[in-house]
Structure formats: C-alpha cells, structure tokens
C-alpha cells in the first residue's frame, strides 16, 4: 500500500526491541514498520505477549527501541524522554493520582506544560463536560467508580491536546455493559477531538467495531494491517484468520493458478477457485479458509460445494451453528442466522451439502 508522506501521525520504521542480555535475550519487537495516519483510530491487536504494549510504550517513551526510528509528523521522537513527547497515554490501570481531585488530575498535564491558570481552568471545565464528569470534579479519584475513573483518565490524557493518544487496553477492567458504552464513547471522543488514537487490545470484537484500521500482531511482528473488513474478509495469514472471528480451515492442494486466483482441490474431489493474499505464491499443500457465516447448508448433498454429515446443531438464539463432518473427517461449521420462519429443519445424522461462493473462500499458506 503506498503511503502518502506528511499525512502520517506516527511512522514506525524498522523498530526492534530486545529485552535482556546474552542468552536471555528476547526480541519483544522484531523489526516492525507501520504508518499510522492522522485522525485515524488505529488498533494494535494481538494475544498477550505479541509486542503490542511494547510498541505502545516505545511510542510513549517509557522504553527506547534497540534499533529503528519512530517519527511523529516526520520528526524522530525515539530518543526523547516521555515528558518531551506531545503524546499522552490512557493506562490500563488508569494510573490516576490518588492524592488529587478529579479536576486536579485532569489539569496536571497542562500545569506541567506551564499553562496560565485561567487557561487550565477553562480547559479542565471543557474536558469535564466532554466526559460528562462535571458533577464529580471535586471528588478524590478513590471516591468514584471504575467507569468514572476511566472517563477521568481519558479527560486527563486529552486535556493537553496531544498529537496522538495512546490507549493501553483501557476497557479491559470494565464489565461487559460498561465496556460497550465506553466503546461508543471512545469513538465519539475521537471524532470530536480529531486526535489520532492508537488503541491496544487483545479483544478482536473491540478492534473490529471501533477501528479505522487494525494491525494484527503476533510474536513481535505485524502480520497484517488493514481495515476491519480487510482483516476479516481477506486475512493474509492463517494466524490472522484464526485470531479474528471463527473460521473453517480446510486442507487442500493447488491444482492450477492464475493472477490472484488459485484453483484448489479439497475435501475429496471438490475444487474451488479462490483468491490469495498479495505476496503469497500458492503451491502444493495449502489452507483454505471459509467463515462459518459465508457458507450455507443445502438439504441435497449433490447441490453443495462439498458434502458431509450433520453431526451437531447448536442453537445460539440469534443464530444456529451446524457442525458438519466432511468426508475426509474434517469438521466444518456453518452459521445460519435465525429468522422468524426457517423453511428447512435439519436433523443430526442427515447427509447435507455445504454451499459457498468462490469469493467466500481464501487460499492461505498451509
């Protein structure tokens, strides 16, 4: 993807971060490069230990890269201490100052920047309004709830109007309902302030619903960067397809190939012509991935793309999962959204067909 120079808020160039020395060396980040555009809600997504928090800490300045550059609007900030970077962080634990009031917490950054008192007061009032915490401004941070602490942490980080706001799994301590509320709240705040957000999470659902673009990370590397739709519909690697959403993995063999499309033989003698990611040259054994909701069940096995035996039916309320045992012994899950009138009912043990379009399948490295 060609990058437009000057439009990037953050550019990470070949950053490596090694912890420990000698034999105990661990590369938390293994030569990572990524560009984050201005006004973007950018998410670093990955399982714990993938290096996403390390990357965030490098951008914040709490750690320094072993190699590589971090550019903020074109200027290398990697060697700067955190207090010289126009970047603010919302911490996972919020890290509110317990000996200060809500308002004092929010004003702290501006105070440290040496802003005049009147300006600080006006800005704090504005921030309190933005996060709807006006009524609690004189409270100690220990006297407010977790959700309220979250809002104060956000207001405190936004008050100095940073170029980039870093959010380190800020919603993980909240319960489900509050988390949903804060997801919408965060989107609203990003929209209203126009600040670039870099959001770290291991929750794929959170990443998909909130982000403009997502970088999926694993073992210190960025595997794929793209819009939620890109990542979900066109995963570049098996790990990405597996980590985000549910996926059926099928073993197959490449029969023939032309630009962007490979014909793959799988599940006995079925064939399909499916797309593959850029930079991958499919040959021999490959993995075919199909999302459960992109496939349909048909009563006549002959009419399906592939056929199998229905082994289990799991009802989820909004949808039903049909587990189909394919002829080769592999399992395939079909997700069917429940509607008022389901025309066909299936019974376990029945022979069924599974039907999916060619663009529902994708060829990935085995």
């Amino acid at each position, binding site marked *: 993807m060609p990058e437009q120079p000057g439009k990037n808020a953050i550019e990470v160039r070949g950053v490596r971060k090694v912890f420990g020395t000698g034999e105990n060396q661990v590369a938390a980040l293994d030569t990572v490069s990524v560009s984050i555009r201005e006004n973007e809600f950018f998410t670093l997504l990955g399982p714990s230990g993938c290096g996403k928090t390390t990357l965030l800490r490098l951008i914040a300045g709490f750690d320094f890269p072993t190699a590589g550059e971090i550019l903020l609007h074109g200027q290398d900030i990697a060697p700067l201490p955190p207090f010289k970077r126009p*970047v603010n962080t919302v911490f996972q634990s919020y890290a509110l100052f317990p000996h200060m009031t809500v308002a004092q917490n929010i004003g702290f950054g501006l105070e440290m920047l040496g802003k005049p008192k009147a300006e600080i007061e006006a800005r704090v009032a504005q921030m309190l309004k933005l996060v709807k915490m006006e009524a609690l401004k004189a409270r100690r941070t220990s006297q407010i709830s977790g959700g309220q602490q979250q809002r104060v942490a956000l207001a405190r980080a936004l008050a100095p109007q940073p170029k980039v706001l870093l959010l380190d799994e800020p919603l993980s301590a909240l319960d489900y309902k509050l988390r949903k509320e804060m997801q919408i709240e965060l989107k609203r705040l990003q929209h209203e302030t126009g600040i670039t957000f870099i959001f770290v999470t291991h929750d794929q659902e959170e990443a998909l619903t909130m982000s403009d673009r997502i970088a999926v990370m694993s073992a210190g590397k960025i595997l794929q960067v793209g819009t939620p739709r890109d990542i979900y519909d066109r995963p570049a690697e098996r790990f990405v397809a597996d980590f985000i959403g549910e996926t059926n993995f099928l073993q197959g063999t490449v029969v023939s190939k032309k630009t962007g499309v490979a014909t793959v033989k799988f599940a006995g003698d079925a064939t399909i012509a499916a797309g593959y990611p850029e930079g991958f040259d499919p040959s021999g054994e490959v993995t075919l991935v199909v999302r459960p909701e992109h496939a349909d069940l048909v009563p006549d096995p002959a009419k399906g793309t592939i056929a199998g035996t229905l082994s289990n039916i799991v009802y989820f309320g909004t949808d039903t999962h049909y587990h189909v045992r394919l002829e080769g012994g592999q399992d395939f899950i079909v997700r069917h959204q429940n509607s008022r009138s389901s025309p066909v009912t299936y019974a376990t043990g029945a022979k069924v067909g599974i039907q999916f379009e060619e663009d529902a399948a994708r060829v990935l490295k085995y």
Partner: protein
Amino acid sequence: MAEPRVMDIKDQPGFRSIAIICLLVLYVPVLILMIFSLNSGSLVTHWEGVTLSWYGTALLNEEFHNAARNTLIISITATIVSTICATLAAIGMTRVKPWRGLAAAFMVINLPLMVPEIITAVATLSFFALIAGTFGLNFGIGNLILAHTVFCIPFAYMPIRARLEDMDLTLEYAAADLYATPWNAFRRITLPLLVPGIMSGAALAFIVSFDDFTITQLVAGPGQTTLPLYIWNQIRRPMTPEINAISTILLMVSILFVSVSFLIARRRAK
C-alpha cells in the same frame, strides 16, 4: 455458596491462655510501674496511697529538665537527618536502574540492625576517642547526634522503602507522560504519596533514638545526660516513685508518637 473454610485462631486449643500469659508478662510490669508513680509513700514497692506529687517533683526537677532537653535535641535532630538520608537511600535503591553493589549497599544500610548494639557502642566510642586524640576534635553533643543518626537510618529506611516498593510505578509513568520532568514527577507525585512512609520512618527513628541507652551511655560526655541515662543514674540510688513518674511520662511520649504516626498513616492510606 458456603463460606470458605478459614481457620479461626480462637478455636485453637491453648490460644486463649497463651495470649493471656503473653499480655500479662508484657504489660503487668509496666502497669505496676505506672500505678506506683501515684504512690504517696516514698518506696516503689510499698503502696501507701494515691498522690500526683511525684509528677510535681519530677516536673520541677532541674536535672530532669536538662536530660529532657538533651534527649529532645538529640532525637529530633537525629530523626530529621536520618529520615532525609533514609529517604534518599530508599529512592536511590528502588527508582534507578539496578546498579552493581545494590545488594551490598542494602546490607550496609541495614547492618546496624544486625550488629550487637554494645559493639556499635564500643566502636563509636573508640572512633570519637580517635578523632579527639588525633585531630583534637570534639563535637560535644554533636557526637551523640551523629551516633544516633547513624543507627536510626535503618529504622527510618525500612518503612520508606516498603512504601516505595508498594507504590504503583505507573503513576510515575503517567506523570512523565503528562509532561512532568523527573524532578516535578518526584515533587508532585512520588513525594506526596511517600509521606506516610516518611512519617512512620521518622516516628520509628525518633522512638529508637529517644530511648537509646547502650550507645548513649558510652558516648555521652559530661553534661550530656539523656532521659534514659538519667533514669539509670537514679535507680542506683534509693529509688523513689519519682522514677516511676518520669518513666510514665516517657512512656506517654512514646505512645503519643506511635499513635499519631499510626493515625496519619491510616488517614493517608484511605
């Protein structure tokens, strides 16, 4: 759901009787000492009636005044200096990159707790004697202040270090993230949160200095009698309940100090 099974110590056989014996052994002598400070007779072992006059005698006693003044000068100065040293040491040992000799430094700071006090006392005495002999230097009461400061440092150090280790480091990261220079982050975040630790460190140091006997006895020069030395000198004479009154006053000062520092720590912790 059933309550998790937690052992109730009161159900343990013998808990009650052992606890009562311990409390009696610890506090009955102190209680008797305090009761006899109200004895109207002039013997500390023979009860005659109730009076407060021994407190009057004690409070009007010039020697007691001098001893109290010396004690306060020494322990307050030693407390302040040792608490400052301990605070700096604790920060230098918890808030910087691990350095070579960190473990050794920790040992050195805590050594006075391990070395028998009489050894420290003799060593300190020899040290001051050497200085006086070689350079003709004698700091007067400064000798005592210096000696007290040194052995107070580990007592002040422990609670301060514990507080620093308990403190959430993310708070300091957050301060730095919000444009606080290292000095500002210390002044505005670390130090205010450290105050309860510093207070209890100072209170401990004060108590330890306030009632120190062994080192003071060896190092003190003429006219440098402290309260513990004064009491020691008195009991070598025929004892009167005045000693009990003085001891009770000392005890009250200690209790007051400990309570105040406890209350401060509790209020801050909220």
